């Protein structure tokens, strides 16, 4: 039996084997406490072997264990004993559940990166080799993620062996293993000497790019960017560039999609010159791909890609595609384009923007699909910087009004969110003329979320234009609405008042807002009275003590 004060820790230990998974999980999460109670030596000699056998547990428990063991070095006696942590993690690297394996690999990497070089050679490298030669694919998958830790401290012969083992994993029968190898190729390559990089790794890489499983080739695309950054520019152009160009014409749309998504990183890898000569045509092809998903990914990169090109090239090659995309048959493509196209304005400069981009903006602003219009409006500030808002404002207004009266309340909600931005871009004058009425109209929307957002919007406008303006253009209209026969709208007014008060300051609140609230406290609808009470509470800090 244990002394009374040790009961909690004793219970904690016992519960490592409790039948209730929740208790076991709890104990595992407190593993460091247990280790400290046992002391370093017993942790090494008893707790760790105990945990190594404990691989039969539920995945949740194993996941927690894999995580805890990653930070366990201090509890086993420091760096020199770090190797005792490897066996339990090795078993965890072989379980079937992917997330447990991933966590175990992560922890192993964390431990491995702290271990002394001799220990790495003595225990870590053999572990990697054991896993790589594992009977089940699960072990081999885990092994792929450990090479970059094991490699740097290994001797020359060992390094050669590790390279060849990795090469075998890349040709494993199981696609899962090849995928894991492809994912980790970049990391491993980063630790390798340039000489081997060109020979061994490039060979492996080329094999992966020709894998007959699409899922493996997909991951090889990511490898392109990572490898490209490691290679000398001329090697990169010689080896990586052709692969990228090939990938951009792959039969599988998923691979092309991946290229479209990664193209910016790939351009960075190969450098500006080859980008201009080789990748621009590839990119243009992707922008005209016959699969909408690929066009969506490509359209989303238009601005980023244009930025690394000269304006002339962008105008010459990219802009025509953009024009086509702006009338693409897929609304999602147009929407993706609309969300980034505004960013092209600074790249192209004022003249080209007015000449070329403006018509595209305008056509997108008239798009039948609300998302497209919203995306344009949301990025308005970028164009404003280049050409000023005047050119856009005529076409902007109908678009805004139409969105403001859209059938779907979510669309209306989205446009309300952008009103303060628009107001700041368009200026007070324009706003007063055209948008003020809209803002009031939303307060009487049928949908609560819209009324609520409208009230919030008023507050943000008041912040934007100042209390004086608000006093003229917002407050009277709002207060007028308290006479509305419908109690829900009167409630909206109360809500608006409570939001506006802090912005308006105590004087206006006392003179204008408070009387309305007080009158409303005699409303015949109890709900209103109740809300008055709530509003009053929020007004208390704003108004003077005297009232």
């Amino acid at each position, binding site marked *: *039996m*244990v*002394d*009374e*004060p*040790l*009961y*909690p*820790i*004793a*219970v*904690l*230990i*016992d*519960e*490592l*084997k409790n039948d*209730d998974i*929740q*208790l076991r999980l*709890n104990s595992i*999460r*407190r593993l460091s*406490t247990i280790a*400290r*109670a*046992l*002391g*370093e*030596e*017993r*942790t090494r000699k*008893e*707790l760790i072997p*105990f945990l190594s056998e404990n691989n*039969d547990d539920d995945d949740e428990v194993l996941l927690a264990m894999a995580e805890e063991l990653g930070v366990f070095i201090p509890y086993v006696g420091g760096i020199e004993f770090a190797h005792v942590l490897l066996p339990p993690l090795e078993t965890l690297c*072989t*379980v*079937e*559940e992917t997330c447990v394996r991933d966590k175990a690999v992560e922890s192993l990497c964390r431990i491995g990166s702290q271990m002394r070089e001799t220990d790495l050679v003595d225990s870590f490298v053999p572990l990697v080799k054991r896993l790589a030669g594992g009977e*089940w*694919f*699960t072990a081999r998958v885990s092994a792929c993620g450990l090479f970059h830790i094991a490699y740097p401290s290994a001797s020359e012969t060992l390094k050669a062996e590790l390279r060849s083992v990795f090469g075998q994993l890349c040709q494993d029968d*199981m*696609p*899962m293993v090849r*995928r894991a190898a492809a994912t980790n190729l970049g990391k491993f390559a980063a630790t390798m000497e340039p000489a081997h990089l060109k020979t061994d790794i490039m060979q492996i890489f080329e094999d992966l790019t020709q894998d*007959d*499983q*699409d*899922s493996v080739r997909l991951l090889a695309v990511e490898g392109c960017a990572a490898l490209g950054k490691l290679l000398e520019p001329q090697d990169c152009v010689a080896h990586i560039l052709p692969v990228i160009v090939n990938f951009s014409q*792959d*039969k*599988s*749309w*998923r691979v092309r999609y991946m290229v479209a998504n990664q193209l910016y990183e790939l351009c960075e890898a190969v450098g500006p010159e080859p980008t201009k000569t080789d990748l621009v045509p590839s990119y243009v092809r992707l922008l005209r791909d*016959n*699969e*909408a*998903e690929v066009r969506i990914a490509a359209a989303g990169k238009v601005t980023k890609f244009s930025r690394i090109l000269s304006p002339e090239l962008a105008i010459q090659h990219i802009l025509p595609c953009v024009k086509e995309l702006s009338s693409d048959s897929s609304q999602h493509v147009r929407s993706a384009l609309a969300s980034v196209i505004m960013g092209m304005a600074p790249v192209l400069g004022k003249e080209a923007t007015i000449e070329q981009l403006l018509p595209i903006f305008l056509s997108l602003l008239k798009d039948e699909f609300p998302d497209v219009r919203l995306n344009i409006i949301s990025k308005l500030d970028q164009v404003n910087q280049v050409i000023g808002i005047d050119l856009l404002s005529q076409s902007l207004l109908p678009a805004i009004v139409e969105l403001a009266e859209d059938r779907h309340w979510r669309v209306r909600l989205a446009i309300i969110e952008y009103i303060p931005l628009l107001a700041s871009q368009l200026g007070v004058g324009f706003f007063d003329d055209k948008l003020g009425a809209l803002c009031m109209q939303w307060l009487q929307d049928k949908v609560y979320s819209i009324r609520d957002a409208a009230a919030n919007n008023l507050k943000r406008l008041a912040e934007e234009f100042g209390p004086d303006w608000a006093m003229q253009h917002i407050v009277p209209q709002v207060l007028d609405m308290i006479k509305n026969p419908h109690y829900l709208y009167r409630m909206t007014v109360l809500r608006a008042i409570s939001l506006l008060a802090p912005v308006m300051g105590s004087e206006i609140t006392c003179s204008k807002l408070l009387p309305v609230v007080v009158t409303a406290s005699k409303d015949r609808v109890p709900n209103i009275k109740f809300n008055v009470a709530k509003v009053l509470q929020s007004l208390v800090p704003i108004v003077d003590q005297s009232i």
Partner: protein
Amino acid sequence: MNGGDGGDVAAAPAGPPPPLDWKFSQVFGERTAGEEVQEVDIISAIEFDKSGDHLATGDRGGRVVLFERADTKENGGSRRDLEKIDYPTSRHPEFRYKTEFQSHEPEFDYLKSLEIEEKINKIRWCQTANGALFLLSTNDKTIKFWKVQEKKIKKVASMNMDPSKAVGKGNIGSSSVSSSTNSHLENGGYKDKSSTNLINDFKFPPGGIPSLRLPVVSYNETSLVSRCRRVYAHAHDYHINSISNNSDGETFISADDLRINLWNLEISNQSFNIVDVKPVNMEDLTEVITCAEFHPTHCSTLAYSSSKGSVRLIDLRQSALCDKHSKLFDEQEAPGSKSFFTEIIASTSDIKFGRDGRYILSRDYMTLKLWDINMDSGPVSTFQVHEYLRPKLCDLYENDSIFDKFECCLSGDGQRVATGSYSNLFRVFGCGPGSNESTTLEASKNPMRRQVQTPSRPARSLSSITRAVRRGGESPGVDANGNSFDFTTKLLHLAWHPSENSIACAAANSLYMYYA
């Protein structure tokens, strides 16, 4: 049951592979005479795993039963079976019961006021890992991913606390210990506090506290534990008719009447629609998907069959939504022979890829067709299975039998095909070049009892006039006994062992195994 005398095998010497001599191997869940078959016990899916070492069956009661091969491992378990049957020299696959679990339960969809049956529609085996078996099972709406694993039953000995005493204290609820035990049952917060208190109050001595012991666990026996790892639900508006794994080991498809969805095994909350045949207006609906299967090695190719009798091959690389097929396998019915039933009997009930992926076998009500995926002009071979039923289509329509969905299967070497029929009969055809093997077997302990020779080779092969004569002579013989065909006992589900000549087939609630 075993009164009949076995006839001899169709001994047509023309084909290179000699016809197989089928023998009874095993039966599981055999009915005794007069025993009523429970609806829930009726087998609704059979599937061998890739290695052929395991066999799974699903039934209408939502259960999945697993069998494992007994003859390759140790012989202990199969001795009883050996005694039971009369073939002592057994180098054929023998199976024994391994485990079973309740995969699906009956459910009720409140939104649509629909009852969802627990019946298992399909089972597919996934990649084994670490000795654990993985399989997918589906009913009409929900797919589940199961892991079956041997687990050691642990017995905890030597605790710090006397368990009985601890429980006693917990009941009293007075001691500080038991209250802390209870506290992490309810929430972890208090536990943390108590532990940090402990850490603050006591400095752990550098050597640790010697009186604390780790629990000692002893493992005595093992048991098989089946755990549902993932549930893929709410993705199908219509009934799921098939699921199929991709060769990449990470994705699978599920098909209902109008759509095919693509899933990642690890992600259960989203799937991608890859085929959608739903017309804008449901009144324009003329064709539904009846079955879908991935190519065994090409990760981007899948085939699906339709109620109009066509098989479409699609290439997932082409586009995200593959509504356009890359190949269409369809055989036009001769225009004159159209009748009310033409469309119904043309409906494909099952398709299977051959092991190398070159051939697709399809089953419609009357025939079994073998297609070469490189030849879309017509089937390579057509095997008449139910030709003798043609005059009775009206009756079959009346009692709904015409809508029965028979499955089909290919042998591992691709030399033979098999499919089920009525009266618990199933038929095996040779499909190698020049073979005219055609065997009819009954799912009973004496498969040859009702052996009938109907060499109904493909109509297109004109090589043998004698055979045509023989068919003319013999087919009516079957028809004459037509009354003996019992439409209530139908053999819908069967599977061919992936590497050996062994067939597992389901007759109501019984699983019969044959070998040759």
